[in-house]
């Protein structure tokens, strides 16, 4: 690509320092592989254990034992010998396993024998009227402010469904936030569907945690509305109120801060850019890379572990990272198949254990159709301000899929490069065209995956003597 760039050759590159990436890089390095762990954040932990090393004891106690669990993973990573490079933005990756990074304004490149992607999850976009207004945030964003900056909202309305929403509510109560209302969008039919997937005894722990959280919120007297529909945010230059329907009545609550959440989906920007095969999951309502039991993608030497492989939760991510790392060590010629299998046995059991309640959770917190395929006036592509109605209109004019929607409407061509609108665009076009989402497909993702300036690219040339 650029003759002036020095390419560093290593055994393994792991992208993402959440639970899967920390566990994978740790095992690889402990077993002697020259391993580089790249992560965009300033410290290890990913989103789930964000700020885990610097959180003071009071904050750690407030965030709870599930958060504190990440400390041991970070500690072991630091001791492992893996080269951890925080503040690294990966802006290009190729199927020949070249990885291009911007770090501290400088462009560097690596070539690796095995590439392990542990890029985790992102919150599912929640396109409702008014969701682009300042003061409307993803629930995870509010939690990140608490984890990394000890910031808690003075008052807030939380709306949506899923484990994170209830956990965040309990954490905010403990921090002293006034929760004006919790608007639960879980539909009755979800509860009925979930009953068919009630986990066996091995999955009860997670369910008990959920019930305990909800009991805490009731005990605190949090105003909770159930079976909420028709969410809409009012505001001119920022959020001023939230409207909804519950118990057969239209309601309005004044608030300047709203957290929305409808679950999480795999971050697919890098697996898409690489051209890995993906499969639509009807139960998780998202695309996932096609993987074998070790995390191998359709491309040689490229593996995926953790929530980027499909949503399995934080506790399943670390064992998944080690499974993929064991396979990577085998591919590097450092483990025979027999030793790999033996090394992986405990992690396979642990991984399966943490998946026991998954089918139940997937059914219970299946996202409402109103956010999967929003009404015509709702902005879907936040960057280019393209509405659901415009997408339906170009589908009627013959637009055959997400990539044509780019040229018709510029949907997905703004700074976020389709990260937030991609899932919704695929759903809307599939519905309009009368096809499956699998057939409709997803945006083709091209580098640069992160903004890189001409100056930074030019800077990459500096070791050229000319």
């Amino acid at each position, binding site marked *: 690509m650029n003759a002036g760039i020095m390419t560093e050759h290593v055994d393994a590159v792991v992208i993402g320092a959440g639970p899967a990436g920390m566990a994978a890089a740790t095992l690889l390095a402990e077993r002697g592989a020259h391993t580089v762990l790249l992560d965009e954040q300033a410290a290890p932990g990913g*989103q789930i254990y964000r700020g885990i090393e610097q959180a003071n004891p009071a904050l750690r106690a407030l965030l709870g034992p599930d958060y504190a669990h990440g400390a041991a993973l970070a500690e072991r990573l630091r001791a492992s010998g893996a080269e951890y490079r925080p503040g690294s933005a990966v802006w290009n990756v190729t199927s020949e396993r070249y990885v291009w990074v911007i770090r501290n304004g400088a462009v560097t490149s690596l070539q690796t024998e095995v590439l392990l992607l542990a890029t985790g999850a992102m919150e599912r976009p929640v396109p409702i009227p008014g969701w682009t207004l300042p003061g409307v945030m993803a629930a995870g964003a509010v939690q990140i402010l608490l984890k*990394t900056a000890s*910031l808690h909202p003075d008052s807030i309305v939380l709306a949506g469904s899923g484990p994170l929403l209830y956990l965040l509510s309990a954490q905010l109560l403990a921090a002293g936030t006034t929760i004006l209302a919790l608007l639960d969008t879980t539909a009755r039919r979800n509860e009925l569907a979930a009953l068919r997937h009630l986990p066996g005894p091995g999955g009860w722990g997670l369910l008990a945690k959920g019930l305990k959280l909800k009991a805490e919120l009731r005990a605190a007297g949090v105003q909770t509305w159930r079976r909420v529909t028709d969410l809409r945010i009012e505001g001119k230059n*920022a959020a001023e109120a939230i409207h909804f329907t519950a118990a057969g009545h239209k309601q309005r609550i004044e608030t300047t801060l709203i957290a929305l959440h409808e679950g999480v989906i795999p971050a697919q920007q890098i697996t898409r850019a690489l051209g890995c095969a993906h499969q639509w999951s009807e139960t998780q309502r998202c695309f996932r890379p096609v993987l074998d039991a070790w995390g191998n993608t359709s491309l040689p030497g490229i593996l995926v572990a953790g929530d980027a492989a499909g949503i399995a939760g934080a506790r399943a991510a670390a064992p998944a990272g080690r499974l993929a790392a064991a396979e990577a060590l085998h591919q590097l010629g450092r483990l025979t198949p027999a030793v790999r299998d033996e090394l992986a046995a405990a992690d396979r059991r642990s991984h399966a254990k943490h998946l026991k309640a998954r089918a139940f959770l997937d059914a219970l917190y299946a996202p409402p159709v109103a956010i999967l395929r929003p009404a015509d006036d709702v902005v879907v592509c936040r960057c280019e*301000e393209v509405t659901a109605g415009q997408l339906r209109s170009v589908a009627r004019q013959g637009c055959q899929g997400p990539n044509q929607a780019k040229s018709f409407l510029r949907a997905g061509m703004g700074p976020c490069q389709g*990260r937030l609108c991609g899932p919704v665009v695929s759903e809307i076009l599939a519905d309009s065209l009368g096809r499956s989402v699998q057939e409709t497909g997803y945006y083709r993702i091209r580098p640069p995956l992160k903004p890189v300036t001409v100056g930074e690219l030019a800077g990459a040339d500096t070791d050229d003597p000319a």
Partner: protein
Amino acid sequence: MHSTRADSNFSRLPDPRPELHFSFEGRRLPAHDGDSVAAALLANGCGPFRATAVSASPRAPWCMMGICFDCLVEIDGTANRQACLVPVADGMRIRRQHGARTL
């Protein structure tokens, strides 16, 4: 409890990390060492971070994890920086971003 500006939606829990100062639109404001630029701006109630290139509509962070790009600001003269990914530093000069960046 360390209070933040009245027009912020957020308050700070007791936070032992050292204080530093940055500027936003020329105003000198406090932050804690380890805050992201986005967290520092939200703590101070700085209002919208940017205006969109399409309709100049106001935006502030949605995701705080590098996905949404609605926190783009100008930092020390460089436009198009993701405020949620850049740690705030003493003396940093931050400005709102209006419309598309210029290269």
